[in-house]
């Protein structure tokens, strides 16, 4: 659910064009992370949202949210988040580290990079339409 990670930085970049969306989304995302409750951020994902995980697994919005609900983070950190706006679209990239338990109950200890694609919808809300992650080869 890298869109949620990338979202935090949007308040100061692309989403700053829409302060209501930016501040509200940040709070919502922070709350979701604190509580391990992805339901709070579901409205920020477009209906056609597609997630591509580091292992190449592709999931829809519903599948991604279901996986996120089953994932329990103990520690999450992100770094080097950059946002570039392209009119009504924006690209957020960054570095992500997480520890916890993944959706299948296995220990999670990962270091990845992500690219999130955000689109300003006709109703003015920014939504994430695609998120893609890859592992960092050491």
């Amino acid at each position, binding site marked *: 659910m890298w869109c949620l990670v990338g979202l935090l930085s949007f308040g100061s970049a692309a989403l700053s064009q829409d302060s209501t969306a930016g501040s509200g989304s940040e709070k919502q995302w922070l709350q979701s992370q604190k509580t391990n409750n992805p339901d709070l951020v579901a409205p920020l994902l*477009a209906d*056609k949202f*597609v997630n*591509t*995980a*580091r*292992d*190449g*697994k*592709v999931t829809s919005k519903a599948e991604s949210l279901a996986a996120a609900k089953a994932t329990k983070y103990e520690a999450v950190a992100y770094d080097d988040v*950059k946002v*570039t706006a*392209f*009119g*009504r*679209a924006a*690209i957020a*990239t960054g570095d992500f580290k997480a520890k916890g338990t993944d959706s299948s109950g296995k220990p999670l200890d990962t270091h*990845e*990079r*992500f*690219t999130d*694609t955000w*689109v300003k*919808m*006709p109703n003015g809300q920014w939504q994430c*339409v*695609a998120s*893609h*992650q*890859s*592992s*960092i*080869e050491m």
Partner: protein
Amino acid sequence: MTTRGTALVVIVALSCVALSVNLHAQGDTAKQIKELQQQSRDAQMKNDASWAQQHLADGFVAGNSWGDWETKDDFIKDLENKTNKWKSGNISEVQVATFGSNTAVSHYTFTYDAELRGTHRARTVICSDTWINDSGTWKTAATHCSMVKGK
């Protein structure tokens, strides 16, 4: 038919036309993006930097399957680097989703065998590309690929 009935028929007909035009436009965009996707890979196979110059947006970023980032300049330098050699490269399963008239995201599988920056890489990756319509020209704003498990 009453005036109200006629008006209803006209509204329904116009709605159908609008929906048809919209779906047609989405279909055209998807077709165009698929063609551009193929052109992009063809140019990559030939180390042809001119295509990238024209079709990568300023601010473009590429995330590769081994976790490195590349800017537009980095990407073009790699294409111009004659020590990078592509033995093969095929894209398949291209799917395009459009968002309004100026944004599209393509997902596809890319299987390649190449010598890149002195490292031999032969693998199948799955990629997501974001396309933006820049004054009538579709350009790639971002691409990100990751390894497909088991391939």
